């Protein structure tokens, strides 16, 4: 069975995969330059800063001299990344030496940024028009609510309390790969769907956004435009209101979808309407590996395999149900138990023990998060043991041979199978052997020749 792995890295991988011309075009936008710079590995950032005011090309050799012997591998990664993103342009000079120089557009934009400083992507609206702006806490709650609602709708179209206006075709795109639908059956989560649910919010968001972007062309939107708009959005100030009339038509269309995902909140005044970016939007350009976006956990696991989840969220309950037996639910507390049966169920759905353990660790309640380990060792060990229990039996298609005419023929057949690395079992007393199915034809040939 092919293992479907959800690649949830970050925005920049997607940007890097754009064609060169599109990339150069993107760098015209100062925000994208800044977002790209921030996404680079530390060493690469360093090189960009160092080369910022060097106009000519720098030879690869002299660059390598900046690095200590220990750091050569890091240096290679950094330079590869820079070339991939076309921040560095590789050229060969007369003496056939590789030289690098900064992408001129990128360079000019960054220089400007350093001297004149960051400008706002868009002027926020004056506060006399936008009365009653939500507080940052309200906004964050709104964003998470919206996101959860979306997720619930994603996994179970019927369960969502308030249907969002994401068109069903777009929703289908999101569901592709996460849900499988057989005829006349309710859609079921696929293996990657389960994995998706256990991911961090940021990683989930990124997955959805990636799907959204790659689907853009079908909707008649240029993916590069969409990327640049999303990156620009991430430089807006959380909690400030921005006039929706400053957006182009395509952007206005996109922002409605983003509102459904919880990236922005739309509000309407008497005449004007405006959008307020939430934390989800401003985190978009951040590298997802950053633990800074870590939110407070809610799960306490005890050594007796009982699990207390302080959460009111229906989604959390659904997620926990994936691998545990929910015993009872109080208004703010979900109590469950991790049992062998519940875990076998999870493994059957393609969730791995490692994913469950990481989920429990990442979402550990602050009271236990400070402890090391945050999830009791006996529980994590047992989860892993139960998983390896399932993997005890390995099924290999095979063929069974017996009734060999003589011991010589049997020995020769064994040796032959060994040569092909296909011998699984031999019983020299009764002249029987088992070989892998894929060498069966060779084996038959061999035996025929022996006759």
């Amino acid at each position, binding site marked *: 069975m092919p293992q479907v792995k959800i690649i949830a890295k970050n925005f920049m991988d997607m940007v890097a995969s754009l064609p060169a011309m599109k990339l150069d075009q993107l760098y015209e936008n100062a925000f994208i330059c*800044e977002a790209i*710079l*921030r996404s680079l*590995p*530390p*060493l690469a*950032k*360093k090189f960009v*800063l*160092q080369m*910022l*005011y060097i106009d000519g090309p720098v030879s690869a050799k002299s660059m390598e*001299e*900046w*690095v*200590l012997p*220990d*750091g050569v591998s*890091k*240096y290679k990664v950094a330079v590869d990344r820079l070339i991939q993103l076309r921040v560095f342009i590789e050229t060969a000079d007369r003496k056939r030496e590789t030289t690098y120089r900064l992408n001129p557009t990128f360079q000019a934009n*960054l220089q400007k*940024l*350093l*001297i*004149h*400083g*960051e400008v*706002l992507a868009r002027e926020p609206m004056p506060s006399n028009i936008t009365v009653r702006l939500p507080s*940052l806490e309200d906004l964050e709650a709104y964003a998470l609510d919206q996101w959860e609602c979306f997720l619930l709708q994603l996994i179970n179209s019927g369960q969502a309390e308030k249907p969002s206006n994401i068109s069903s075709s777009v929703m289908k795109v999101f569901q592709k790969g996460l849900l499988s639908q057989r005829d006349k059956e309710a859609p079921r989560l696929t293996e990657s769907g389960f994995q998706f649910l256990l991911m961090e919010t940021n990683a989930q968001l990124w997955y959805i956004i990636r799907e959204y972007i790659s689907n853009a062309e079908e909707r008649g939107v240029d993916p590069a435009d969409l990327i640049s708009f999303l990156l620009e959005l991430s*430089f807006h*100030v*959380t*909690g*400030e209101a921005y006039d929706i009339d400053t957006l182009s038509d395509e952007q206005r269309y996109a922002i409605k979808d983003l509102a459904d995902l919880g990236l922005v909140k739309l509000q309407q005044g008497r005449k004007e309407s405006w959008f307020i970016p939430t*934390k989800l939007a*401003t985190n978009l350009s*951040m590298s997802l*590996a*950053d*633990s*800074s976006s870590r939110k407070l956990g809610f799960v306490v696991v005890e050594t007796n395999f009982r699990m207390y989840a302080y959460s009111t969220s229906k989604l959390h309950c659904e997620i926990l149900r994936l691998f545990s037996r929910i015993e009872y639910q109080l208004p703010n507390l979900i109590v469950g138990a991790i049992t062998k049966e519940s875990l076998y169920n999870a493994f059957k759905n393609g969730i791995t023990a490692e994913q469950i353990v990481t989920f429990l660790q990442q979402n550990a309640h602050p009271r236990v998060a400070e402890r090391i380990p945050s999830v009791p060792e006996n529980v994590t060990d047992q989860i892993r043991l139960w998983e390896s229990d399932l993997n005890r039996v390995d099924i290999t298609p095979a063929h069974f041979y017996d009734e060999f005419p003589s011991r010589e023929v049997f020995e020769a057949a064994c040796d032959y199978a060994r040569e092909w690395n296909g011998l699984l079992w031999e019983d020299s007393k009764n002249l029987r052997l088992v070989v892998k199915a894929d060498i069966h034809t060779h084996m038959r040939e061999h035996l025929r020749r022996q006759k």
Partner: protein
Amino acid sequence: MASAPSKLYADDVSLLVVLLDTNPFFWSTSALPFSKFLSHVLAFLNSILVLNQLNEVVVIGTGYASCKYLYNSSSYSNHGLEDGRMPALCTRLLKNLEEFVIGDEQSIKEDPKGGTMSSLLSGSLSMALCYIQKVFRSGSLHPQPRILCLQGSPDGPEQYVAIMNAIFSAQRSMVPIDSCYIGSHNSAFLQQASYITGGVYLKPQQMDGLFQYLSTVFGTDLHSRTFLQLPKSVGVDFRASCFCHKKTIDMGYVCSVCLSIFCKHHKKCSTCGSVFGETPVELDSVSKLKRKTPE
């Protein structure tokens, strides 16, 4: 109090505390005008803020007779990610700087220190360390701190004890002190500070390219430093100052109880009060050679 590694952000998030020398006695004689110096520094601070949205910059002014927090990128961050924007950085910093310099001038007039022209480095170092301690103790996650001294004025031997104490406390809390010395002679204090705390000491040769020096050497976050060639210290001046006359000395007397250093023989230690014995016949035979070796 060393910080637990789990409390740090990933990789390269840094808190840079810059100690800005504003000593009027130095700048009036310097070849590099203060305004030019400032424009290099502002661009540098901005580049630090651009590199990572979680980076923080704190600027402390080191005056002749006083020190003051001039700018803190996190305190103007009522806008979440938009903190430390250049316009804010420029205007806030320049406004505070002006106020500070005027106030400093006032205190010079009120309380002239006499001969020395050094600035109050010990004060600003202590302020920087206090700020870093505050960061260590607050919140769950904090950036990796480091201190950068942009110093031009000569060392003030009378601050020897205070500066050394600050250096050792920085060493204890694993905060490197980088120093960029723009004066004419090398600064023994800063050389020692960087050497002991594992920072970088650099005396730029070309003042026009100050930004390049700053970004190349001092812009490096602590994580990347393990992979990069950075200027190494050659010949650190380890000489100590005596406690009695605050003079830098090669040889002197050391109290065997509290390790205070004196240039002349005393009957009693001025620090801990121990009574010393006989007056030595000859300096060379009896006095201990004072050589402070790095730990």
